[in-house]
């Protein structure tokens, strides 16, 4: 039970703060003494939190589906020709800064939620793809031979041997991808997505540090909670599939 303690506690704090920040106005008068508007009110923090999580969740789901299927395709006999190019693109692509991908999505799709989602999916699938290739490629060929020798079909080898063995590495890729995407989604506020970055950007534009702090604390907590959740899942995974 212990590995789940940290994520549960962090998620509880995050939810509590998202709900209770508006009641903490007096605290923020200390940060920003010169103004009356101490609490960001254009949207509720609760709504922004949900919208932020939704963006990351959707992009992680699409990214994982696309990246894992692409990774499987290029490691099968039918798609092996594409393996060198795909693995090179996965590593070169990660060199491109996420904020640039976000900015370049705007000329392509305009402002709003859609370009943010596109950028999150495109950038987020690279670490998953890379880890899928590493995970599938790192399996001892002798294991695959013996699985075939036991009479398994190639689909059985994939689902019963390869994917469970590569799962942990793929999961680590999803963790990296989600961590990056939580940060990138926050910057998505500058291209019109509604996320926890909104208060930060609004605060920076209007010179209101209280807004900035409110947004920054919630973004930071969201990232920490998610990371510790992945930590717990990885441990649970390790126990289930340890040989």
């Amino acid at each position, binding site marked *: 039970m212990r590995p789940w303690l940290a994520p549960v506690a962090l998620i509880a704090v995050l939810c509590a703060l998202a709900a209770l920040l508006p009641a903490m106005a007096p605290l923020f008068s200390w*940060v920003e003494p010169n103004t009356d508007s101490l609490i960001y009110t254009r949207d509720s923090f609760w709504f922004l939190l949900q919208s932020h999580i939704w963006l990351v969740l959707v992009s992680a789901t699409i990214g994982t589906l696309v990246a894992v299927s692409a990774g499987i395709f290029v490691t099968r006999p039918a798609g092996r*020709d*594409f393996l*060198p*190019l795909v693995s*090179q*693109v996965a590593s*070169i692509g990660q*060199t*491109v*800064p*996420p*904020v*640039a991908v976000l*900015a*370049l999505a*705007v*000329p*392509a799709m305009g*402002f709003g939620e859609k370009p943010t989602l596109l950028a999150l999916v495109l950038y987020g699938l690279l670490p998953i793809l890379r880890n899928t290739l590493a995970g599938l490629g790192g399996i001892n060929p002798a294991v695959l031979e013996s699985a075939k020798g036991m009479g398994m079909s190639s689909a059985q080898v994939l689902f019963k041997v390869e994917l469970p063995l590569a799962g942990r590495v793929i999961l680590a890729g999803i963790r990296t991808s989600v*961590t990056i995407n*939580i*940060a990138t989604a*926050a*910057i998505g506020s*500058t*291209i019109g997505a509604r996320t926890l*970055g909104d208060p*930060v*950007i609004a*605060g*920076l534009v209007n010179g209101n*540090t209280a807004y*900035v*702090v409110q*947004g*920054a*604390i919630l*973004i*930071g907590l969201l*990232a*920490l909670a998610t*990371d510790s959740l992945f930590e717990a899942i990885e441990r649970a995974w390790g126990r289930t599939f340890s040989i």
Partner: protein
Amino acid sequence: MPVSTQPPNRVIPALALSALACVWLLDFGLVQPNRIVSGTGYGLYAATGWLGAVVVSSLLAVAVGLALRPTHKRFWVLALLLITALMALPLLLEMLAQRKLPEDSAYARIGIGAGFWCLAFFLALMLLETLGQLKASRRLQLSTVLLIVAGWWFCATREGLSSLSLIREYANRADQFTQALTTHLSLSLGAVAISAVLAFGLALAMVRRERLRRPLLGLVSFMQTIPSLALFGLLIAPLGALSAAYPFLQTLGIRGIGWAPAMLALIAYSLLPMVRNTYVALMEVPEPVVDAGRGMGMNERQIFFKLKLPLALPVIIEGVRITTIQAIGLTAVAALIGAGGFGTFIFQGLGQAAMDLVLLGALPTVFLALAADAILSALKFQGASR
């Protein structure tokens, strides 16, 4: 002579056909009356006339044909063809400018359409695949990139492309561009240099005292988890308070916004890859090597500087590479807190809905990251081969 027939390559035809579809289905270029209005899009035929359309289509068809031929020489021919095509690509935009740009309007400009970007992207992928098939050396890869960059540079300085929106935006702010470049480089490279020194010290401390390993690695990876916008934001209040309390800090330029919080955050982010790689590299020097050194009568100091450090160098440089790429990207975000750099153009452009200004910030950021990657990868291999 043995007859070695090689299997047809399926990757190049797939890419070439995708490029062909994109080039014919999407807008190749735009003509805009001024910098804000989105303008009219033109397809390949409308933009470049029959000459451009025939050249582009037949180029892609020839690439498909070459890829299916059963000889090895096909890849050399393909490489030459693709390099020439990529070098000359901007000329297609010049054709659009000649054909469609209204002559009497001082503000009219041509924009790059999705079709052009897709063509460039797929041609680059085809070249990547071809160089991979040729097992090209790093030197050959690097000269290929330099050739293409030189080609684009040559095209960009020609009179015919002076109406390209990107070049117009640059011409309007050439001074600001140089300043952004300087700021961007000094912030990111400065942060990398400072954190390299810090990380080296921390890694050495961890090597000496095993007890420090967990808390230190925990701390630096904790910092890496905090999203950039949050960390930049959280540094504003304390630094602002600090500079309000000690006015002499303000004369140094240390305020809640500006370069100071940006630098601090960049250093914090840079520590994890640096510390981790330096520590792992120093720990992984094989024990027999160290023993051999001792046997040759080296003292601890000599063992460290003559054996351990050179052996650890490639992994340490890999840490520097990851850090530099990351810092270049994060510096762009730091423009939000007034640190300057190419991010200024990106966020200004987003604010004014001026897409060419966004490109003027985003493309150099990408280019810097790719260049840093190329240079440091080359250094790493040099270090490894010694």
